[in-house]
């Protein structure tokens, strides 16, 4: 199963290394990871996507929590949340396919960022499924290059308060 986990950490040197070391050492696979500052500059938020069953997820959250620099770990498993990533996709485009492609891009609410003689570069934000669906749809035209960011996510409605954490 795919899980999106949000981790609030001290914005300190070496924290990313601690987290990636932990995943490597325990044999957990990171599907995607993003780090950014939060509204409070001393705190960063990491959004980590992991695949695995209940056991893996439980271990991932507990092990993350155990790190001294980790303030709060939230698994979005049981909550409503918004998840986005961004993709840049360069697609083959000829005179004859131009109309169709531009229509498709419109339907998926993607944005054209660049057009050259035989290609179009599209920017698209959305959840992974939406981006995957778009990529699949335009595949027949020939994809020249793609580049995707990792996932960022926030819970809907409620705010995750930075409160006391419990660990060992």
């Amino acid at each position, binding site marked *: 199963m795919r899980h999106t986990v949000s981790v609030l950490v001290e914005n300190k040197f070496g924290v990313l290394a601690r987290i990636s070391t932990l995943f490597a050492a325990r044999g957990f696979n990171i599907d995607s990871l993003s780090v950014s500052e939060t509204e409070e500059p001393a705190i960063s938020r990491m959004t980590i996507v992991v695949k695995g069953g209940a056991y893996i997820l439980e271990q991932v959250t507990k092990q993350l929590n155990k790190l001294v620099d980790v*303030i709060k770990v939230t698994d979005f498993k049981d909550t409503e949340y918004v998840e986005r990533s961004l993709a840049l996709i360069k697609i083959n485009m000829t005179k004859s396919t131009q109309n169709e492609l531009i229509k498709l891009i419109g339907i998926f609410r993607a944005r054209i960022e660049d057009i050259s003689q035989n290609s179009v570069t599209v920017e698209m934000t959305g959840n992974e499924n939406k981006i995957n669906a778009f990529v699949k749809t335009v595949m027949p035209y020939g994809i020249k290059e793609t580049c995707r960011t990792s996932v960022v996510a926030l819970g809907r409605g409620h705010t995750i308060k930075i409160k006391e954490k419990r660990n060992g």
Partner: protein
Amino acid sequence: MADGYARSTGKPGVCIATSGPGATNIVTGLAAAYMDSVPMVAITGQVATNVIGQDAFQEADTTGITRPVTKHNFLVKDVKDLARTIKEAFYIATTGRPGPVLVDIPIDVQRGICEFIYPEKIEIRSYKPTYEGHSGQIKKAVDIINNSERPVFYIGAGVIASNAEKEIIEISKKADIPVTNTLLAVGAYPPDTNLSLGMLGMHGTFCANKAVQAADVIIAVGARFDDRCTGKVCDFAKKAEIIHIDIDPTAISKVVDVDIPVVGDAKTVLKEMSATIEKKERKDWIKTIDGWKAEHPLSYDRNDDKLHPQYVIEKISELTKGEAIIATEVGQHQMWSAQYYKAKYPRLFLSSGGLGAMGFGYPAGIGAKFGNPDKEVIVIAGDGSFQMNMQEMAVAILNDIDVKVAILNNQYLGNVRQWQEMFYGKRYSHSCLAKRKKCPKWCNTPSRDKCPVYVPDFVKWAESYGALGIRVTDKKDVVPALKKMLEAKASIVLDIWVEIEENIFPMVPVGASLDDIITRMNG
């Protein structure tokens, strides 16, 4: 040394190493302390902050290298942070589940000058260990225990770390609950009492392994279901509901699915439980256990006149009344020590459990003596392991530290040889420590008379440091030599030539279930 000091005193041990090679040399020591949750603070030197990252002389990425083997580590880049960081290091090392913390200090920070402000109290918002157990969970656990017929305590190092031995004794007596311990918890429960089962697992006692497999409730306290304890996990304690009390949430349901987890400090949780645990006699259960104890007690050939290694440890145990601190190396001698040394109290048996680091014992013994100058400290060493850190004798001699060493010299990396004998068709490969080029390639018929001269000569080696060395080759000389060792107020090494091909039993082979315990060779 810092590790031995910490394990034997309960206070954090401190070690200092220089940058680069000094720092890389302490990695094994840190890993051993981390695996066994030993509170330690390691301080390493680092190159100046302005040259970090330039491959400067004796530079190593110390925080990078030690990250996976420490509870936490710090690189201090500003002298103003130094005092607070040191305080934090001790705080983290000694609270929650203890562990080693490393502080890497660049030379310019070491020499920097600032006003000394040492914080009174440490508050780290991202680090708050849980000490109190959840009362609902505690109630559930107590109900299960009260309704059980065949409960077993399975106690580990966490019991010693939280000084919970009294609570275990109290509850076990009140409710007739037998107790088995891990290697690290030798001494946490009074040995040879009617409720004591001895050690669990691969080289644990027959009765402990039987009891766990037959139990209807396992109460694990500060133990982490190490594979050496559980054997084949899916066959472990199949009939039992499992209660697990541990301060570290990651330890829970990591290996074995736990029915009732209680996260918290062992002593605090047990105290709360003990009030509602019913006084109860479990006569049938104890009778069954007594049967197992009688069926296969720990045994070796006591009646022949061969010099069995177990005999040496039994005598050490008798002569010291189980009140001396024992530090072991790693191998067969370690397991025999755990089986035959009857440590009366916690913190008397020091051994590298999780990492199983040969070379641990001798420095640990020296550290223990620093921390306990009035106690007898004896290192029980293997002839292989001892060679890994025997140079530390310089520290002992220079500081007048009288640590006694009993080498159980079996001319082999005995533990490895035993596996080669039992599981690899007696093909002894690179396990004989006397083997020379001229020896037959597949020699598996060692004998003291025919084999080449053993190196080093431990007696001469000890003498070269100004210590005393005594060789013992005969069973009848063991007790006099041990007495001499105990009377001496000096560093002394006994090179005891024990039976070469003695094996440790009982044994649960790797990957086998605890039910498949082998009590003797050939049945």
